[in-house]
C-alpha cells in the first residue's frame, strides 16, 4: 500500500505542515517560559497571515509581506502585553479577546480593501516565497535511499521552513546558554527573585511577549505567502491551538517542540492523503487523525504518560512589593 515514494511525499507534506506549528509553538514557548500564558497564538497568526498577504499583494514582495506580517502580529502582542503585564489582567481572557479581534478585523479589513468577502487576491511570482533547491539536491537524487530523502524531503522548501528549523537550536541556545535566557526562565518560575536581583520583570516579560509576536508573525506569513497563495478567512483553522497543544506535549522545551510539531504535522499530512486510513483490521476516519493532537495533549496533561508541568509563575501577573 505504501511505497517509498509515497512515504517521501507524506514526509515532505509533513515538513510543510509542521512549519507554522513549529514557529507558533516556539513563540508560545518564549511567552510561557516568561510566565505569560498565551492562548492568542491563533489570533496573532491569523492577523499576520492577513497583513502579510495584503502587503505582499500590494507591493509584489513576499519579504515586505513578511515584515507586515510580523508587524500585524506584534501589534496584537502589544495589546496582550499591556493587558497581562501592565494592567495585570487575566492573561487567558486577553488571549481569547485577541483571537476574536483577529478573526473579526481580518475579514472587516479584507472586505474593505479587496471586496472579496475576506479573501485577498491570489498571490503570484515574487509575492510568494519560492521553493529553494538546496545545493547538490539534483546531483544526489540518484544516491540510494539518502538521495531521494535529501532531494524530496529536505530540499525544496521555502526559506521560512529553514528559518523555522534554525529557530530550534537558536531557542535552545538563547534559553539555556545565555544570561538573558536564564533570566527569562527565572521570571517564569519565580519573578520575585529576578526582581530582587535588580532586573525588571516588566521589561523581560515584554521582550518575551514581543519575541512571541515576531515568531507568530513568521508563522502567519508562511501560511499566507509560503504554504498557500493568499489569505483566506479563518485560514489558521485551529493551528494556533494545535501549536499550544504541541507546546504542552513538548513540556515547554525547544527540541521536544520540534518532535511534537513534526508528529502533529505528520498526522495532518496522513489525514490529508488518506481520508479513510485502511489498516486492514480497522479503518480510521481522517477526522480521528484531526482530533488526535488534542486527545494526545489531554492524555499528556492528565499526567498518565509523563507529567507536563507548566512554568510555576505562568498566568500570574507580577505585583511588586511596596
Amino acid at each position, binding site marked *: 500500500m505504501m511505497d517509498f515514494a509515497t512515504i517521501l511525499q507524506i514526509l515532505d507534506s509533513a515538513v510543510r505542515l509542521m512549519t507554522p506549528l513549529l514557529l507558533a509553538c516556539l513563540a508560545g514557548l518564549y511567552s510561557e517560559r516568561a510566565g505569560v500564558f498565551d492562548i492568542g497564538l491563533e489570533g496573532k497568526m491569523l492577523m499576520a497571515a492577513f497583513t502579510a498577504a495584503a502587503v505582499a499583494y500590494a507591493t509584489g514582495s513576499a519579504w515586505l509581506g513578511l515584515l507586515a506580517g510580523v508587524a500585524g502580529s506584534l501589534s496584537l502582542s502589544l495589546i496582550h502585553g499591556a493587558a497581562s503585564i501592565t494592567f495585570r489582567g487575566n492573561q487567558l481572557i486577553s488571549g481569547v479577546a485577541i483571537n476574536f479581534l483577529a478573526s473579526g478585523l481580518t475579514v472587516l479589513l479584507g472586505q474593505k480593501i479587496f471586496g472579496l468577502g475576506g479573501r485577498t487576491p491570489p498571490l503570484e511570482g515574487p509575492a510568494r516565497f519560492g521553493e529553494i533547491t538546496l545545493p547538490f539536491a539534483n546531483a544526489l537524487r540518484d544516491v540510494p535511499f539518502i538521495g531521494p530523502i535529501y532531494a524530496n524531503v529536505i530540499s525544496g522548501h521555502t526559506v521560512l521552513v529553514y528559518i523555522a528549523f534554525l529557530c530550534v537550536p537558536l531557542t535552545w541556545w538563547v534559553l539555556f546558554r545565555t544570561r538573558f535566557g536564564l533570566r527569562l526562565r527565572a521570571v517564569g518560575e519565580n519573578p520575585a527573585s529576578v526582581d530582587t536581583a535588580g532586573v525588571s520583570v516588566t521589561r523581560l516579560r515584554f521582550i518575551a511577549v514581543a519575541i512571541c509576536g515576531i515568531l507568530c508573525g513568521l508563522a502567519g506569513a508562511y501560511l499566507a505567502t509560503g504554504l498557500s497563495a493568499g489569505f483566506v478567512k479563518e485560514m489558521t483553522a485551529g493551528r494556533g*491551538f494545535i501549536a499550544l497543544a504541541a507546546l504542552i506535549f513538548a513540556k515547554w522545551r525547544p527540541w521536544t517542540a520540534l518532535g511534537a510539531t513534526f508528529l502533529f504535522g505528520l498526522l495532518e499530512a496522513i489525514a490529508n492523503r488518506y481520508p479513510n486510513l485502511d489498516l486492514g483490521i480497522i479503518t480510521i476516519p481522517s477526522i480521528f487523525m484531526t482530533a488526535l493532537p488534542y486527545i494526545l495533549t489531554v492524555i499528556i496533561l492528565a499526567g498518565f504518560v509523563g507529567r507536563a508541568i507548566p512554568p510555576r509563575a505562568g498566568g500570574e501577573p507580577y505585583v511588586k512589593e511596596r
Partner: protein
Amino acid sequence: MDKMPKWADVILTPLISLLLAMAISAIVILAIGESPWEALTTMIDGALGSSYGWGFTLYYATNFIFTGLAVSVAYHAGLFNIGGEGQAAMGGLGVALVLLYLPLPHWLLALPAAMVGAALFGALWALIPAYLQAKRGSHIVITTIMFNFIAAAVLNYVLVNLLRPVGSMDPASARFPESTHLPKLSDMALNFGIEWGKNTPANITFFVALAACLIVWLLIWRTRLGYEIRVLGKSEPGALYAGINPVKITVITMLISGGLAGLMAINNVMGEAERLLLNAVEGAGFIGIAVALMGRNHPVGVLLAALLFGFLYQGGGELALWTTIPRELIIVIQALVILFTGALDNMVRIPLERLFLAIRKPGRP
C-alpha cells in the same frame, strides 16, 4: 473599607468598559469608511424596531443566557470554563438522540426529556476536564479548549457516519418528529390574539432560560453548595480549612456549568433547526465568556448582557444585509467587550477607585 461603592463596581465599571469598546468599534467603522451613526441606527432598527427583529434578538439572547450562566457558575468556583462551545455541541447530540429515538407524543413530554439529554451530554463533556483539573491539576482552560476540538470531531463523525439519513448528502440528522416541535413565541402570542414576531425562531426556551437565571441565583447565593462553590473560588486553602472538599466541588461545579451550556441545545437544535446540524452552536459558547464578564457573573447581569449580545447579533445580521459592513463587525465588538471588561478591567477600575477616593477624602474627619 472598599475603595468604591458597590454600585460603581457593579454598574459603572462594566458600563465604561462597554462605552470604550463601542468607541473603538466606532473608530473601526470610520476606518473602513462607513458611518458609525448609520450603523447604530441600522442595528437598532433591525433588532429592536419590529417584533420580527425582537423575535431574533430574543432567540439569540436565549442561547447566550445559557452559555453565559455556564461560564459564570464555573467562575464562582475560580474555574474558567472556555469549553461551552463543545459542551453545547454535545448537548445538541443529547437532544437529537432523545428526540430521534424516544417516542414522545407531545412537546410537553419532549421538552423535559430533551432537557435531560442536553444537560446530561453537556455535563458529561465537562466531566473529564473537571476531573483532570481536580485530581491531576491539568489546567482546565487548556483541557476544555482541547475538548472543544474533540467535540467538533466527534460530532462531525457522528453526523456524517451515523445520524445522517440514507440518501442525504448534508451532514445533518433527520428532522425531529412533528410532535416534539416546541411552540414559538409567535404562536403563543397568537393564542392571546396578538400578532407578534411572525417567522422568528424565538420559542418557549426563552422562559426556560429565565428560570435558569433564577435557579442559578438561588444556587449560588441561597444554598450550601453555592456557598461552598464561592468559598472555593475565593481561596482553596480557605475551603480546605472550612472542611470543603475541593475535588468534589470542582467536579460538581463543572457538571452544572457543562449542563447549562448543554441546555442551550433546547433552543437552537430543538427549538430552531428541529434537527442536528454541523456547527449548530455557531460560537455561542464563546460569546458566553463575554456575557459572563460583562454581567459580572450575576444572573441578572448575564440576562442583560445576553440581551445586549442578542441585539448585537441580530443587528449585525441586518448590517450585513443593508450596508456594506460585514457581520464580522460583531466579532470585533465582542472581542473588544471581552478585552475591556475582562483583561483590561484594571485600566478602568484603578482610575475610578482613585476618583472615588479623591471625592470621599474631604468629607472625612
